[in-house]
């Protein structure tokens, strides 16, 4: 079942002389429950694509359809609501709110939506991400890996249609990176969470079901990954 579709996406920075084409007519279709890795060299346009898919950066042309809605045809209020409810973003630098504790950070998107949250689901997530002992801590009191786990919990809490991860392990050591990847895979498997992850690490990309390679703003390769049982 199609959940996300990008049609003829173009993104151009600058004007005439200093013009940089970050995305050049990108078309992409994502099925529900897919775990996609977007790989490419630095400056290839992979992060730009992710941000545009997540509704935080506007394309110069083209459209992004999420659950049948063209997200860039929506007004700010509707777009914000869509980001709150249907998109989850994970960044390389965690981007937690420093003045909120772990619990408040995780619940923030739901609270912004004035919504009620499922306490069992919250406990389950906290459990899964091993944050039980850190629930009242401020971000500054956590390690990098723990902060990223909070960021994942925050994203999963609102059960988004798609989870977009921008180099989620870019700032972590290899041990923590593996753990984060395992968590993302578990979320994908347990909750059938659609995940699109940007990485330049080809090994980490193999955790995904599908790898899209991007070069100079164009998709140059799009292939399925065969996983062994023990993965």
């Amino acid at each position, binding site marked *: 079942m199609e959940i996300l579709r990008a049609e003829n996406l173009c993104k151009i920075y600058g004007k005439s002389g200093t013009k940089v084409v970050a995305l050049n007519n990108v078309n992409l279709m994502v099925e529900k429950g897919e775990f996609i890795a977007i790989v490419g060299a630095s400056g290839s346009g992979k992060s730009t694509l992710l941000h545009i898919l997540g509704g935080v950066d506007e394309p110069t042309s083209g459209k992004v359809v999420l659950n049948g809605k063209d997200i860039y045809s929506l007004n700010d*209020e509707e777009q914000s609501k869509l*980001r*709150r409810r249907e998109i989850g*973003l994970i960044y390389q630098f965690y981007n937690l*709110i*420093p*003045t909120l504790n772990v619990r408040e950070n995780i619940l923030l998107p739901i609270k912004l939506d*004035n919504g009620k949250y499922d306490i069992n689901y919250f406990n389950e997530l906290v459990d899964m991400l091993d944050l039980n002992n850190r629930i009242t801590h401020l971000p500054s009191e956590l390690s990098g890996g723990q902060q990223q786990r909070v960021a994942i919990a925050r994203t999963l809490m609102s059960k988004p249609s798609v989870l977009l991860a921008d180099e989620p392990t870019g700032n972590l050591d290899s041990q923590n990176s593996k753990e984060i990847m395992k968590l993302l895979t578990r979320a994908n498997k347990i909750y059938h969470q659609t995940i699109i992850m940007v990485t330049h690490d080809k090994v980490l990309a193999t955790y995904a079901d599908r790898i899209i390679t991007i070069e100079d703003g164009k998709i140059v390769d799009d292939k399925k990954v065969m996983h062994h049982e023990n993965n």
Partner: protein
Amino acid sequence: MKTIRSLAFNYLKYNSKKVRVIVLSIILTTILLFTVSLGTSTVRQYKIDTAKTEFGSYHVTFRDTNYDQYQDLKNNKAVKKVVPIQTIDKLSDDELGKYVNIKNIVDSEGKFDLRIQKMESDFEEVVTLVKGRYPQNDHEIIITRMLERNDLAITIGKKISDYTIVGIFQEKNAQAVYNYQQKEDGSFDTIFTPAAITKGNIDNGDNIDLVTTYKSSYNLYNKIYKDAQSLGGTYEIIYGSKRYNNADINFQLVVAYGQYEDFIFQRTMYIFMIIILIILSAFSAITIYNSFTISLQERKKQLGILRSLGASKRQLIKMLLYETLILSIISIPIGIIFSFSFGSIIIFVINKILENIIVNKVKLVVYPIFLIISVIFILLTIFLASFLPIIKMRKISAIETIRESKDYKVLRSKEDYPIIKHLFGSTGEFAYKNMKRNKSKFTTVLVSLIASVVLFITISTFIDVIASSYGVDNGREADIHIVISDNEAATELVQNIKSLVGKDRMTIIKERQFDFKIDNDNIIYDNVSNDGYYGIEIFGLDDASYNRYKKVAGLKNDNQILLYNYLENYDDNTDTNTYEVFFKDTIKDIEICRVDRKFYPDHQTIIPMGCYYHFNNFYITYDNELDWWSPAIIMRMEDYDNFINVAKEYETEQFIKDANSQKIDIYSEKFVKLDKQLNKLFAEYREKGMDIYYDNASLEEYEPYMIIKTIRLVLYIALIFVIIVCLINIINILNTSIALRETEFAVLKSVGMSNKKINSMLRLEQIFLGIKTLLWSLPLATGVVLMLMKLSKEITESGKVAISFPLRAYIISVVGVVSIIFIMIKYSISKIKKNNIIDSIRKQSI
């Protein structure tokens, strides 16, 4: 909303250091703006209280009305109270007049007219009782304290004519003396006011005056004019204002209420106040705007995260406004409390200093409406100043804030600045380019500095305007005046006074009028008596005063005698002149060495002889100076004494005694101290039987003088606040700017730029900033100063600019800017020194 609130709360809770700057700027804004409101209310209330005590709480007295009109006015809905008062008697008393030292209260024959008025009740509307009680029947009177003389038995329990004195009152509206009102043609209307009041019924058919108070002070002039007209009054236009012949307005009170008809001075003062308020508000707004912009710039990333998590623009604006509200709720009361405390201290000090001088104690007052207006004004300033950066922030998209791509906005700069390069070398050019590239940061500091300089110069000029409006700092002439009778102790007393006065100016004057015969054809003076004699006032001045007077009059030769005005075409080329002087009943030829004529085309140009401009002196003394419409001869004391020696043979003993009584005028800055010393001295000599009249007019000026001092103090303290705000602002910006430029400096270091070069680059950046500040602020301030000088010109009667160019303020400003720039250089260099290259570069990449 709950989440928004909790986000706002959390931010404020965990960022107290950053928030402190905003809180401080709001507190200082509140102090600045609220103090203006507090000061205005307090001064206004003080003026009202003083006017009520000194001149009465009534608004107008309608003259020559009848009983029916009294009834009509009583029924007027706008009127609060009408007190009828009627003149019933006039006592002429020789004895009394001799001892009363009130100018013009005696007639030409030396008789004193005491007017008796009757009132039914409400005496307190017209007078304030200081001793005894109010009259209870038509045989009792209360008299003004100016008449009370214990040594002459004019006091409570004693009689004047058939009236028994039962009380002494402090006059309001100068009831004890004659009032003069100048007409446009230069002549005077005399208004008589009561000196004694008795109790009696006001009956139908009586001609009465109506002391009237209106319910509201709003639009008083129109109400008064309407009633004056309906009571049959007619008006003249005097100095552009309507003046009804039947209405004596209590101007002091009406003006204290802030009501004025065409008083340019009042209007100008209001304009000044508004200018200051606008400049203060603008300055405060800039400060708050800066602190908000800086705070938001530091939070861009956080706001971006919230946006990416789905917070809408509206939610973010709500959150930021909520934060502003919380900060305002905390800061405004603190500012108000500070303002009150500061005001209370100032008021306490003023009351302490002025304890024995001011009529009423100054009370710290804030009208509820002023409080509300100032709080609204403060809130508006805060919200306007904070809303702009918030709105700006709204435009930034989530991705930009997460990337912080626009955080350190760098503009493209022109390629070359040859003049800068020539003057300051390549480092200078680099520094100048930095300034151009980081325009917004530099502009903010520039605006803060410019605002401070303009404010400082404006306030300094404003203080001068106020001071000159009170006549305090510009040739204050009215001072201490003493008259002592001629007896053996006089010389000793004069010596004693001289030793107290010290080096300050002291003038001894003797004076008497004689009738001179002068050739008719040469004279334009038209008050010639039938037999062709002219009353000419002869003045003897001590040598120093005579020489000073001569100098001012522009005469060079020694031993001249000055013949003062109105004697045109008088032959002053002869060495001696013989005058025919008419003494009591003898005509005698008197030879006086040489007379120089000084003719003034403008008769109002008066050279002060002692300390007074006699023109300003109607109320204070009776007989010490020449009247401005009569001619006078001014001579050295030696010549005067010779003249009196001749007169001795022909005049009465009393005449000679009066002619030898000495008038001493003192001009001294230490008049308060001198007042105490002189009173002590005079008490001693009075006991010895010497008649001494003493008036210290400076004490009357002491109040405005102290008020000026206070205003000066308050304004300078406000200025210190402003400068603190400015410094906080600049340090704030410097901190942010340096934090944001750390990588730039680190990179420059890593590519081989020496610390010395970086320091010199920073130094030049700040120096350029200083130069730019002065280039902008000095012309701007000059514009404001010229405007203030123009306005000040309007408020002085002569049209002469009352204030001089505030050169001192300019020098202080330049020194101030240089010092601030120096501090900025030191601060930036010390900050940069602490930074490590790798740390700074790493910080940027995290």
